[in-house]
Protein backbone atom coordinates (compact mmCIF):
# COMPACT_ATOMS: atom_id res chain seq x y z
CA UNK A 1 0.00 0.00 0.00
CA UNK A 2 2.81 2.34 1.00
CA UNK A 3 4.72 1.47 -2.18
CA UNK A 4 1.64 2.18 -4.33
CA UNK A 5 1.20 5.59 -2.68
CA UNK A 6 4.86 6.40 -3.22
CA UNK A 7 4.72 5.42 -6.89
CA UNK A 8 1.57 7.46 -7.39
CA UNK A 9 3.23 10.50 -5.81
CA UNK A 10 6.30 10.12 -8.04
CA UNK A 11 4.13 9.68 -11.15
CA UNK A 12 2.24 12.85 -10.21
CA UNK A 13 5.55 14.67 -9.73
CA UNK A 14 6.73 13.43 -13.14
CA UNK A 15 3.66 14.92 -14.80
CA UNK A 16 3.76 18.13 -12.75
CA UNK A 17 7.43 18.84 -13.47
CA UNK A 18 6.99 18.25 -17.20
CA UNK A 19 3.89 20.49 -17.29
CA UNK A 20 5.75 23.22 -15.38
CA UNK A 21 8.45 23.14 -18.10
CA UNK A 22 5.79 23.72 -20.79
CA UNK A 23 4.58 26.80 -18.93
CA UNK A 24 8.07 28.30 -18.72
CA UNK A 25 8.37 31.49 -20.82
CA UNK A 26 9.70 31.00 -24.34
CA UNK A 27 13.05 32.72 -24.80
CA UNK A 28 13.35 34.98 -27.86
CA UNK A 29 16.42 34.57 -30.04
CA UNK A 30 16.84 38.32 -30.39
CA UNK A 31 15.78 41.43 -28.52
CA UNK A 32 14.19 43.26 -31.47
CA UNK A 33 10.67 43.36 -30.02
CA UNK A 34 11.92 44.85 -26.74
CA UNK A 35 14.14 47.37 -28.57
CA UNK A 36 11.18 48.57 -30.63
CA UNK A 37 9.14 49.01 -27.43
CA UNK A 38 11.97 50.92 -25.67
CA UNK A 39 12.48 53.24 -28.66
CA UNK A 40 8.74 53.84 -29.07
CA UNK A 41 8.59 54.94 -25.41
CA UNK A 42 11.05 57.73 -26.37
CA UNK A 43 9.00 58.74 -29.41
CA UNK A 44 11.63 57.44 -31.85
CA UNK A 45 10.78 55.75 -35.16
CA UNK A 46 13.08 52.79 -35.69
CA UNK A 47 13.36 50.64 -38.79
CA UNK A 48 14.83 47.20 -39.29
CA UNK A 49 17.99 46.85 -41.33
CA UNK A 50 18.46 44.29 -44.10
CA UNK A 51 19.41 40.71 -43.30
CA UNK A 52 22.88 40.13 -44.70
CA UNK A 53 23.29 36.74 -46.32
CA UNK A 54 26.03 34.71 -44.65
CA UNK A 55 26.66 37.28 -41.94
CA UNK A 56 27.52 35.90 -38.51
CA UNK A 57 25.84 38.89 -36.86
CA UNK A 58 22.12 39.38 -36.31
CA UNK A 59 20.25 42.07 -38.30
CA UNK A 60 20.23 45.53 -36.70
CA UNK A 61 17.60 48.12 -35.91
CA UNK A 62 18.31 51.73 -36.95
CA UNK A 63 16.87 55.02 -35.76
CA UNK A 64 17.52 58.74 -36.17
CA UNK A 65 17.95 60.73 -32.97
CA UNK A 66 18.09 64.49 -32.46
CA UNK A 67 21.66 65.81 -32.28
CA UNK A 68 23.10 62.74 -34.00
CA UNK A 69 24.98 63.07 -37.26
CA UNK A 70 23.75 59.77 -38.73
CA UNK A 71 21.59 56.78 -37.89
CA UNK A 72 22.12 54.95 -34.59
CA UNK A 73 22.51 51.17 -34.96
CA UNK A 74 21.21 48.70 -32.35
CA UNK A 75 22.18 45.04 -32.55
CA UNK A 76 21.37 41.98 -30.39
CA UNK A 77 24.56 40.21 -29.29
CA UNK A 78 25.35 37.18 -27.14
CA UNK A 79 26.13 37.94 -23.50
CA UNK A 80 29.39 36.00 -23.79
CA UNK A 81 30.37 38.31 -26.70
CA UNK A 82 31.41 35.28 -28.74
CA UNK A 83 31.02 37.37 -31.88
CA UNK A 84 34.47 38.65 -30.83
CA UNK A 85 36.38 40.77 -33.34
CA UNK A 86 33.29 41.17 -35.59
CA UNK A 87 31.77 43.57 -33.04
CA UNK A 88 34.52 46.12 -33.80
CA UNK A 89 33.12 46.47 -37.30
CA UNK A 90 29.55 47.34 -36.23
CA UNK A 91 28.63 50.87 -37.34
CA UNK A 92 30.78 53.24 -39.37
CA UNK A 93 34.52 53.41 -38.48
CA UNK A 94 34.03 56.75 -36.69
CA UNK A 95 31.13 55.42 -34.60
CA UNK A 96 31.30 54.97 -30.84
CA UNK A 97 30.06 51.63 -29.47
CA UNK A 98 28.33 50.97 -26.18
CA UNK A 99 27.42 47.61 -24.65
CA UNK A 100 24.09 47.52 -22.79
CA UNK A 101 22.70 44.81 -20.54
CA UNK A 102 19.73 45.15 -18.16
CA UNK A 103 20.34 48.36 -16.18
CA UNK A 104 24.00 48.98 -17.05
CA UNK A 105 26.06 50.34 -19.94
CA UNK A 106 29.72 49.70 -20.76
CA UNK A 107 31.93 51.65 -23.19
CA UNK A 108 34.01 48.50 -23.86
CA UNK A 109 33.27 44.76 -23.88
CA UNK A 110 33.21 43.57 -20.27
CA UNK A 111 32.40 39.87 -20.21
CA UNK A 112 32.89 39.51 -16.47
CA UNK A 113 30.86 42.61 -15.55
CA UNK A 114 27.98 41.56 -17.78
CA UNK A 115 28.07 38.00 -16.49
CA UNK A 116 28.06 39.15 -12.84
CA UNK A 117 25.03 41.31 -13.57
CA UNK A 118 23.34 38.30 -15.20
CA UNK A 119 24.17 36.21 -12.12
CA UNK A 120 22.69 38.81 -9.79
CA UNK A 121 19.39 39.02 -11.65
CA UNK A 122 19.29 35.28 -12.32
CA UNK A 123 19.44 34.66 -8.56
CA UNK A 124 16.76 37.29 -8.00
CA UNK A 125 14.56 35.79 -10.73
CA UNK A 126 14.72 32.34 -9.09
CA UNK A 127 13.37 34.03 -5.95
CA UNK A 128 10.78 35.87 -8.05
CA UNK A 129 12.33 39.25 -7.21
CA UNK A 130 13.89 40.28 -10.54
CA UNK A 131 12.23 43.06 -12.54
CA UNK A 132 13.94 41.63 -15.66
CA UNK A 133 14.05 38.35 -17.56
CA UNK A 134 17.83 37.80 -17.40
CA UNK A 135 18.39 36.04 -20.73
CA UNK A 136 21.82 35.65 -22.30
CA UNK A 137 21.36 38.43 -24.84
CA UNK A 138 22.72 41.99 -24.66
CA UNK A 139 22.67 45.02 -26.95
CA UNK A 140 25.41 46.76 -28.88
CA UNK A 141 24.58 50.35 -29.79
CA UNK A 142 26.80 52.07 -32.35
CA UNK A 143 26.30 55.83 -32.62
CA UNK A 144 28.10 58.73 -34.33
CA UNK A 145 30.77 60.53 -32.30
CA UNK A 146 29.20 63.28 -30.16
CA UNK A 147 25.79 61.57 -30.19
CA UNK A 148 24.42 60.60 -26.78
CA UNK A 149 21.28 58.71 -27.80
CA UNK A 150 22.43 55.43 -26.23
CA UNK A 151 22.90 57.13 -22.86
CA UNK A 152 19.62 59.08 -23.06
CA UNK A 153 17.41 56.07 -23.78
CA UNK A 154 16.09 53.87 -20.97
CA UNK A 155 16.89 50.41 -22.32
CA UNK A 156 15.59 48.49 -19.31
CA UNK A 157 12.16 47.73 -20.89
CA UNK A 158 14.02 45.51 -23.38
CA UNK A 159 14.54 42.88 -20.67
CA UNK A 160 11.35 43.47 -18.70
CA UNK A 161 8.90 40.59 -18.71
CA UNK A 162 6.18 41.21 -21.26
CA UNK A 163 4.12 38.21 -20.11
Amino acid at each position, binding site marked *: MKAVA*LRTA*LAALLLATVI*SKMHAPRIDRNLDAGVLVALALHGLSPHRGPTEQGSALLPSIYFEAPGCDGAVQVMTIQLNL*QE*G*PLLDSVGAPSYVRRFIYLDRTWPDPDRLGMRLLWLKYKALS*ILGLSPYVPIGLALLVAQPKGCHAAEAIDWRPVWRSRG
Partner: protein
Amino acid sequence: MLWLACVLLANQILWEPGQSALQVIEALPQLIASKSIFFYIGWYVVFRLLTESAPERSASGLDLTVGFAVCLINFLPGRSAAGIAVTVLAAYLLATTAADEKLRAAAAVLLGLSLNSAWGPKFLELFAYHLVRVDAALVGSALMITWPEVIWNGNIVGTRNGHSIIVYASCSSLQNISLGLLCWVSIKSLVRTHWLRADIWIGLLVCAVVVLLNVSRLYLTALSPEQYAYWHGGFGEEMYLWAATLIVLLISLWGALRVRQMS
Protein backbone atom coordinates in the same frame (compact mmCIF):
# COMPACT_ATOMS: atom_id res chain seq x y z
CA MET B 1 14.99 4.96 -7.59
CA LEU B 2 13.72 3.83 -10.99
CA TRP B 3 10.77 6.18 -10.71
CA LEU B 4 13.09 9.00 -9.77
CA ALA B 5 15.23 8.23 -12.81
CA CYS B 6 12.05 8.34 -14.96
CA VAL B 7 11.22 11.82 -13.62
CA LEU B 8 14.75 13.05 -14.43
CA LEU B 9 14.84 11.47 -17.90
CA ALA B 10 11.44 12.95 -18.82
CA ASN B 11 12.53 16.39 -17.65
CA GLN B 12 15.74 16.20 -19.65
CA ILE B 13 13.96 15.26 -22.87
CA LEU B 14 10.69 17.19 -22.67
CA TRP B 15 12.04 20.73 -22.60
CA GLU B 16 9.71 22.76 -24.79
CA PRO B 17 8.83 26.03 -23.01
CA GLY B 18 5.74 28.00 -23.95
CA GLN B 19 4.01 25.06 -25.68
CA SER B 20 0.75 23.27 -25.04
CA ALA B 21 0.64 19.56 -24.20
CA LEU B 22 -0.54 18.80 -27.73
CA GLN B 23 2.34 20.74 -29.29
CA VAL B 24 4.81 18.90 -27.04
CA ILE B 25 3.35 15.55 -28.11
CA GLU B 26 3.64 16.63 -31.76
CA ALA B 27 7.22 17.73 -31.18
CA LEU B 28 8.11 14.54 -29.28
CA PRO B 29 9.94 12.76 -32.15
CA GLN B 30 11.94 15.94 -32.77
CA LEU B 31 12.75 16.33 -29.06
CA ILE B 32 13.88 12.71 -28.84
CA ALA B 33 15.97 13.00 -32.02
CA SER B 34 17.63 16.20 -30.77
CA LYS B 35 19.49 14.24 -28.09
CA SER B 36 22.73 12.43 -28.84
CA ILE B 37 22.85 8.65 -28.97
CA PHE B 38 25.33 8.82 -26.05
CA PHE B 39 22.61 10.48 -23.94
CA TYR B 40 20.37 7.43 -24.46
CA ILE B 41 23.24 4.97 -23.92
CA GLY B 42 23.94 6.79 -20.63
CA TRP B 43 20.33 6.53 -19.45
CA TYR B 44 20.10 2.89 -20.56
CA VAL B 45 23.16 2.09 -18.42
CA VAL B 46 21.69 4.01 -15.45
CA PHE B 47 18.40 2.08 -15.64
CA ARG B 48 20.21 -1.23 -16.05
CA LEU B 49 22.53 -0.62 -13.09
CA LEU B 50 19.63 0.55 -10.91
CA THR B 51 17.68 -2.60 -11.79
CA GLU B 52 20.68 -4.84 -11.05
CA SER B 53 21.52 -3.13 -7.74
CA ALA B 54 20.62 -4.85 -4.44
CA PRO B 55 16.81 -5.26 -4.71
CA GLU B 56 16.30 -6.17 -1.03
CA ARG B 57 17.36 -2.70 0.11
CA SER B 58 14.26 -0.66 0.97
CA ALA B 59 14.22 3.15 0.81
CA SER B 60 15.03 4.94 4.08
CA GLY B 61 13.41 8.17 5.27
CA LEU B 62 16.46 10.11 4.06
CA ASP B 63 16.26 8.40 0.63
CA LEU B 64 12.65 9.54 0.28
CA THR B 65 13.41 13.09 1.41
CA VAL B 66 16.30 13.44 -1.03
CA GLY B 67 14.25 11.77 -3.77
CA PHE B 68 11.41 14.28 -3.41
CA ALA B 69 13.88 17.17 -3.15
CA VAL B 70 15.48 16.02 -6.41
CA CYS B 71 12.03 16.00 -8.05
CA LEU B 72 11.27 19.49 -6.74
CA ILE B 73 14.51 20.91 -8.25
CA ASN B 74 12.87 20.28 -11.64
CA PHE B 75 10.34 23.02 -10.88
CA LEU B 76 13.13 25.62 -10.92
CA PRO B 77 13.20 27.79 -14.05
CA GLY B 78 15.81 27.22 -16.73
CA ARG B 79 17.02 24.40 -18.91
CA SER B 80 19.73 23.32 -16.47
CA ALA B 81 17.36 22.48 -13.60
CA ALA B 82 17.01 18.83 -14.69
CA GLY B 83 20.80 18.51 -14.99
CA ILE B 84 21.28 19.99 -11.51
CA ALA B 85 18.74 17.51 -10.13
CA VAL B 86 20.71 14.67 -11.76
CA THR B 87 23.90 15.98 -10.08
CA VAL B 88 22.25 16.05 -6.64
CA LEU B 89 21.02 12.47 -7.07
CA ALA B 90 24.47 11.33 -8.22
CA ALA B 91 26.17 13.04 -5.25
CA TYR B 92 23.69 11.44 -2.85
CA LEU B 93 24.22 7.98 -4.31
CA LEU B 94 28.00 8.37 -4.14
CA ALA B 95 27.81 9.54 -0.52
CA THR B 96 25.46 6.84 0.76
CA THR B 97 26.04 3.65 -1.24
CA ALA B 98 29.63 2.66 -0.46
CA ALA B 99 28.74 -1.04 -0.40
CA ASP B 100 26.75 -1.17 -3.63
CA GLU B 101 29.06 -1.02 -6.65
CA LYS B 102 26.16 -0.97 -9.12
CA LEU B 103 24.62 2.14 -7.56
CA ARG B 104 28.03 3.86 -7.44
CA ALA B 105 28.55 3.07 -11.12
CA ALA B 106 25.06 4.44 -11.88
CA ALA B 107 26.03 7.60 -9.97
CA ALA B 108 29.15 7.99 -12.12
CA VAL B 109 27.05 7.79 -15.30
CA LEU B 110 24.55 10.27 -13.81
CA LEU B 111 27.47 12.65 -13.22
CA GLY B 112 28.46 12.20 -16.87
CA LEU B 113 24.90 13.00 -17.93
CA SER B 114 24.78 16.13 -15.77
CA LEU B 115 28.20 17.26 -17.05
CA ASN B 116 26.87 16.99 -20.58
CA SER B 117 23.44 18.54 -20.03
CA ALA B 118 24.04 21.19 -17.35
CA TRP B 119 27.60 21.92 -16.24
CA GLY B 120 29.33 21.63 -19.62
CA PRO B 121 26.92 24.05 -21.36
CA LYS B 122 27.07 26.43 -18.35
CA PHE B 123 30.88 26.40 -18.39
CA LEU B 124 30.81 26.95 -22.13
CA GLU B 125 28.37 29.84 -21.74
CA LEU B 126 30.60 31.50 -19.15
CA PHE B 127 33.92 31.08 -20.92
CA ALA B 128 32.72 30.72 -24.52
CA TYR B 129 34.97 33.33 -26.09
CA HIS B 130 38.13 32.01 -24.42
CA LEU B 131 37.28 28.39 -25.20
CA VAL B 132 36.47 29.01 -28.86
CA ARG B 133 39.73 30.93 -29.19
CA VAL B 134 41.55 27.73 -28.19
CA ASP B 135 39.78 25.88 -31.02
CA ALA B 136 40.51 28.78 -33.38
CA ALA B 137 44.19 28.71 -32.34
CA LEU B 138 44.42 25.00 -33.21
CA VAL B 139 42.72 25.59 -36.57
CA GLY B 140 44.84 28.70 -37.20
CA SER B 141 48.05 26.79 -36.45
CA ALA B 142 47.04 23.97 -38.79
CA LEU B 143 46.24 26.50 -41.52
CA MET B 144 49.57 28.29 -41.03
CA ILE B 145 51.42 25.00 -41.54
CA THR B 146 49.53 24.09 -44.70
CA TRP B 147 48.67 27.45 -46.32
CA PRO B 148 50.95 30.37 -47.26
CA GLU B 149 48.68 33.18 -46.07
CA VAL B 150 46.25 32.90 -43.21
CA ILE B 151 43.72 35.17 -41.47
CA TRP B 152 43.58 34.62 -37.73
CA ASN B 153 42.03 37.15 -35.36
CA GLY B 154 40.58 35.94 -32.06
CA ASN B 155 37.98 33.32 -32.99
CA ILE B 156 38.02 34.18 -36.71
CA VAL B 157 40.19 32.00 -38.96
CA GLY B 158 40.49 31.62 -42.71
CA THR B 159 42.67 31.80 -45.76
CA ARG B 160 43.53 34.85 -47.86
CA ASN B 161 41.12 33.79 -50.61
CA GLY B 162 38.45 35.93 -48.94
CA HIS B 163 36.82 33.12 -47.00
CA SER B 164 36.98 32.93 -43.21
CA ILE B 165 34.90 31.36 -40.44
CA ILE B 166 33.99 32.45 -36.94
CA VAL B 167 34.20 29.70 -34.32
CA TYR B 168 31.12 29.86 -32.10
CA ALA B 169 30.45 28.06 -28.81
CA SER B 170 28.24 25.53 -30.63
CA CYS B 171 31.34 24.45 -32.63
CA SER B 172 33.55 24.20 -29.55
CA SER B 173 35.43 20.98 -28.84
CA LEU B 174 34.31 21.15 -25.21
CA GLN B 175 30.75 20.29 -26.27
CA ASN B 176 32.02 17.10 -27.89
CA ILE B 177 34.41 16.29 -25.04
CA SER B 178 31.53 16.10 -22.55
CA LEU B 179 29.65 13.78 -24.91
CA GLY B 180 32.74 11.64 -25.48
CA LEU B 181 33.34 11.32 -21.74
CA LEU B 182 29.68 10.42 -21.19
CA CYS B 183 30.04 7.61 -23.74
CA TRP B 184 33.25 6.37 -22.13
CA VAL B 185 31.86 6.38 -18.56
CA SER B 186 28.63 4.67 -19.72
CA ILE B 187 30.36 1.89 -21.65
CA LYS B 188 32.91 1.35 -18.88
CA SER B 189 30.15 1.14 -16.26
CA LEU B 190 28.23 -1.32 -18.42
CA VAL B 191 31.24 -3.62 -18.78
CA ARG B 192 32.54 -3.31 -15.21
CA THR B 193 31.55 -1.24 -12.19
CA HIS B 194 34.99 -0.68 -10.60
CA TRP B 195 37.52 1.91 -11.71
CA LEU B 196 41.13 1.28 -12.73
CA ARG B 197 44.03 3.68 -13.16
CA ALA B 198 44.17 2.92 -16.89
CA ASP B 199 40.63 4.33 -17.24
CA ILE B 200 42.08 7.84 -16.97
CA TRP B 201 44.23 7.24 -20.04
CA ILE B 202 41.29 5.93 -22.04
CA GLY B 203 39.27 9.00 -21.01
CA LEU B 204 42.12 11.27 -22.09
CA LEU B 205 42.40 9.38 -25.38
CA VAL B 206 38.67 9.95 -26.02
CA CYS B 207 39.12 13.69 -25.31
CA ALA B 208 42.16 13.94 -27.62
CA VAL B 209 40.43 12.13 -30.49
CA VAL B 210 37.29 14.26 -30.13
CA VAL B 211 39.34 17.49 -30.24
CA LEU B 212 41.35 16.23 -33.23
CA LEU B 213 38.17 15.36 -35.17
CA ASN B 214 36.47 18.67 -34.33
CA VAL B 215 39.52 20.75 -35.24
CA SER B 216 39.92 18.80 -38.50
CA ARG B 217 36.33 19.61 -39.44
CA LEU B 218 36.76 23.29 -38.54
CA TYR B 219 39.98 23.35 -40.59
CA LEU B 220 38.12 22.02 -43.64
CA THR B 221 35.27 24.56 -43.23
CA ALA B 222 37.86 27.37 -43.13
CA LEU B 223 39.36 26.45 -46.52
CA SER B 224 36.68 27.71 -48.94
CA PRO B 225 32.93 28.46 -49.17
CA GLU B 226 32.40 25.11 -50.95
CA GLN B 227 34.15 23.18 -48.18
CA TYR B 228 32.21 25.17 -45.59
CA ALA B 229 28.88 24.25 -47.20
CA TYR B 230 29.92 20.57 -47.37
CA TRP B 231 31.22 20.24 -43.80
CA HIS B 232 28.73 22.61 -42.14
CA GLY B 233 25.16 21.54 -42.86
CA GLY B 234 26.00 19.36 -45.86
CA PHE B 235 26.72 15.67 -46.30
CA GLY B 236 30.19 16.15 -44.83
CA GLU B 237 28.70 17.12 -41.48
CA GLU B 238 26.54 13.98 -41.44
CA MET B 239 29.60 11.91 -42.26
CA TYR B 240 31.63 13.63 -39.56
CA LEU B 241 28.92 13.03 -36.93
CA TRP B 242 28.64 9.35 -37.74
CA ALA B 243 32.41 8.88 -37.89
CA ALA B 244 32.97 10.71 -34.59
CA THR B 245 30.21 8.71 -32.88
CA LEU B 246 31.58 5.41 -34.15
CA ILE B 247 35.19 6.21 -33.26
CA VAL B 248 34.33 7.34 -29.70
CA LEU B 249 32.14 4.25 -29.26
CA LEU B 250 34.91 1.93 -30.50
CA ILE B 251 37.58 3.51 -28.29
CA SER B 252 35.26 3.27 -25.27
CA LEU B 253 34.48 -0.40 -26.01
CA TRP B 254 38.12 -1.20 -26.68
CA GLY B 255 39.18 0.55 -23.47
CA ALA B 256 36.56 -1.10 -21.30
CA LEU B 257 37.10 -4.62 -22.67
CA ARG B 258 40.89 -4.43 -22.93
CA VAL B 259 41.33 -3.12 -19.41
CA ARG B 260 38.90 -5.74 -18.11
CA GLN B 261 40.99 -8.51 -19.68
CA MET B 262 44.16 -7.05 -18.15
CA SER B 263 42.73 -6.69 -14.63
